[in-house]
């Protein structure tokens, strides 16, 4: 009978107390391991540094964190808009016209990013096919197939020029969602930049049961079956009346999972967003609705006055929207308009019923027309186009820094932030500190578990003094007895620790599933990092120390005395 057989036999003999002690160790370690994983994965989750882009261009108001959370993680509200012209400047591949900045030495790729609408709680992102490595007609760039997968007969564009083999064509550089990871389609094709088409994230497809548009069915039938959808303005709350836009987008492609928040959104051409008549007017309508004001009762000449009163800057309302708004008001202008704005608000009528809303919508004119190719031509003139942000892939670290620090000098209508830096700062100042506190709590739990080992084994030794004396009489040395007791403590620590690591990972798997559902980005809960092994070693060490106290009691057990007892 070897040492382990002897120890395991004795542990089984006191199965209940052994399991309870093991459970306390398990709980402590699993909690600690879950926190270690959170701490390890936190930077990957929130402090992601391997973005496929280096710079976000966004409005100067709001915080850089808000801009990053909104653009990268599709959380929070957009801090505002920037003129589309900035994107024109940054994406330009040819020499700029006089008076416009030349970003070519700094910018490798730039893609537009526009938020504001949603479909069944999932955000719609207005962008261009360039985001996915396709041209404006939805055709793959050189070096990629129809699904956006790299073709083998091309050289990776990431390679430095001197490392590229001669005579082999180089793959076109594309925007990436993470370093060296570009979007690829699982099925379908890329949307065209001027059509009401959409490419959706993998999670959206599976959760909202959306599928590719079936040309053999009618648009209505497709909408019913999930092949087409209509967007809702903003992200209405549960008690808010959704403002459903008139246009329908056809689902033409489904992306492969990226394991980022992008899996949870729907991508549409940014131009299609400017073609929504209700869009900017919708903002005003919503505000009026909240203030219980019927827009049809506002006299056209007093619209600005009402807007200011409601906190809307009339200067920011595009002319096309203003035109629509005034037309609507003029058509139903009351005979005697109230003089005071407050009075105007008092005379407000209840919000329209669903039937009325439907009726209104049917009367809404389209804010676009189609050209001979069927491309969308928004009524909103390009100089009034706005974007939420621009994603920029810079040419080098130096270019990133130049853009970040000098952008305001070039164009004060926008600001440039480095998302990796922002998220690192966010993690360091908030998440990291929180995780450290949690880790401290977990360490305390583990110390309590070690104390529980001490108590259990101490009690067990106290109850087994005669057995220990018998073992001594049979030839077991003091050192052997010490080893047996310490081995028991270490085994409880080791088993509890290992089971704790397993449970901690399972706990993290649950957390990962939750994060996947809420943020579209899971965490790596499978791999066991060196810190976890280190923690296990610490727990085993603590168990050993805890075992030493009863072991020393056993070590000192007087044999003759205990043999004659009982």
């Amino acid at each position, binding site marked *: *009978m*070897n040492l382990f057989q*002897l120890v395991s*036999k*004795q542990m*089984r*003999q006191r199965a209940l107390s052994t399991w309870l002690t093991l459970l306390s160790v398990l709980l402590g370690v699993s909690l600690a391991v879950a926190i270690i994983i959170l701490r390890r994965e936190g930077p990957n989750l929130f402090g992601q540094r391997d973005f496929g882009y280096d710079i976000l261009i966004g409005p100067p108001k709001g915080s850089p964190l808000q801009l990053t959370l909104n653009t990268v993680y599709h959380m929070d509200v957009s801090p505002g808009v920037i003129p589309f012209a900035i994107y024109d400047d940054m994406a330009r591949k040819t020499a700029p016209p006089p008076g416009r900045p030349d970003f070519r030495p700094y910018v490798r790729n730039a893609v537009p990013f526009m938020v504001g609408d949603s479909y069944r709680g999932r955000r719609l992102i207005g962008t261009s096919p360039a985001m996915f490595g396709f041209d404006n007609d939805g055709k793959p760039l050189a070096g990629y197939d129809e699904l956006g997968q790299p073709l083998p007969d091309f050289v990776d564009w990431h390679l430095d020029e001197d490392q590229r083999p001669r005579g082999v064509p180089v793959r076109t550089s594309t925007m990436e969602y993470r370093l060296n990871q570009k979007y690829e389609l699982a099925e379908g094709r890329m949307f065209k930049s001027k059509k009401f088409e959409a490419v959706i994230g993998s999670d959206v497809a599976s959760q909202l049961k959306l599928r590719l548009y079936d040309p053999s069915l009618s648009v209505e039938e497709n909408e019913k079956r999930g092949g087409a959808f209509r967007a809702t303005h903003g992200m209405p709350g549960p008690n808010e009346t959704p403002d459903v836009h008139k246009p329908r987008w056809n689902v033409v492609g489904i992306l492969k999972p990226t394991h980022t928040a992008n899996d949870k959104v729907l991508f549409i051409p940014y131009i299609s967003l400017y073609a929504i008549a209700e869009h900017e007017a919708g903002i005003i309508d919503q505000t009026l609705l909240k203030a219980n004001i019927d827009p049809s009762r506002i006299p056209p000449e007093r619209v600005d006055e009402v807007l200011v009163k409601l906190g809307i800057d009339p200067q920011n309302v595009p002319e096309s929207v203003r035109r629509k708004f005034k037309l609507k008001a003029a058509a139903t202008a009351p005979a005697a308009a109230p003089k005071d704005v407050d009075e105007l608000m008092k005379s407000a009528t209840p919000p329209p019923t669903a039937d009325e809303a439907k009726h209104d919508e049917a009367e809404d004119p389209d804010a676009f027309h189609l050209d001979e190719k069927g491309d969308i031509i928004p009524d909103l003139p390009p100089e009034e186009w706005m974007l939420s942000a621009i994603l920029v892939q810079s040419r080098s670290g130096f270019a990133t820094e130049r853009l970040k620090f000098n952008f305001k000098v070039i164009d004060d209508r926008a600001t440039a932030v480095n998302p990796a830096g922002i998220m690192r700062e966010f993690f360091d100042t908030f998440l990291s500190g929180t995780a450290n506190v949690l880790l401290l709590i977990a360490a305390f739990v583990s110390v309590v578990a070690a104390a529980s080992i001490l108590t259990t084994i101490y009690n067990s030794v106290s109850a087994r003094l*005669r*057995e220990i004396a*018998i*073992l*001594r*009489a*049979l*030839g*077991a*040395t*003091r*050192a*052997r007895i010490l080893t047996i007791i310490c081995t028991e403590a270490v085994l409880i620590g080791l088993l509890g620790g290992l089971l704790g690591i397993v449970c901690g990972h399972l706990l993290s798997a649950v957390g990962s599933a939750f994060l996947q559902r809420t943020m579209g980005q899971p965490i790596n809960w499978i791999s066991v990092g060196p810190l976890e092994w280190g923690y296990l070693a610490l727990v085993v060490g603590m168990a050993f120390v805890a075992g030493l106290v009863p072991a020393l009691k056993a070590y000192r057990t007087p*044999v*003759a005395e205990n*043999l*004659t007892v*009982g």
Partner: protein
Amino acid sequence: MGLSISALKKQYHAPDGSVVTVLDVPEFAIPSGQHVALVGTSGSGKTTLLHSIAGIITPDSGQILIDSPADGSVDVTQLPEAHRDIFRGRHIGYIFQTHHLLPGFTALENVLLGMSFTGRRADPAWARELLGKVGLSERLDYKPGKLSVGQQQRVAVARALANKPSLVLADEPTGALDSETAAAVLALIRDLCTQVGASLLLVTHDRDIAGQFPRQVDLASINLAAKKPFRTAQPAA
């Protein structure tokens, strides 16, 4: 010579500070393979003598030589404690008055346990054979609680003989048994000791049991302290 004791002394401190001499054995020996019954009354130092021979307690002075096939004649009083423990495990079999089996272990495991501290590989076949010899081949997997008192003592006998010791010490091994079982167990002990060639020193207060041995020694005749236990006012050094 199987066992040779000379000038052995053991004293204890009494709670009142006085010193009690419990062992004072000028000379005692058992030739190899001999079975000896040592008779003494309660409190005459029987168990202390056996514990001293086994190295469970250390005498204050004197010499205890035990013959072992591998190491020759060894003075256990001169061995460091750890070596003494190992020597005991290898060369001395000890049968207690109460069986002192481990309750969580089966009969076979208890016998194997006796082989676990010798630094040598345990021999399960020999353990089974021994249990067969004591009539428990059908009870190998029984825990002590499921065995009768007599069967428990048989297991204890098998455990004491597990390492084929050169000396077996038995401390009132039949004290808790009825006379019929006692006789059977006693015969078993002697038989097994003969089989493995071990010397046997059995202490008892029962003259009838002692009468079954070829040599009977009155403890009082070898332990001067047993004749007249005395106290001294001086504490022991």
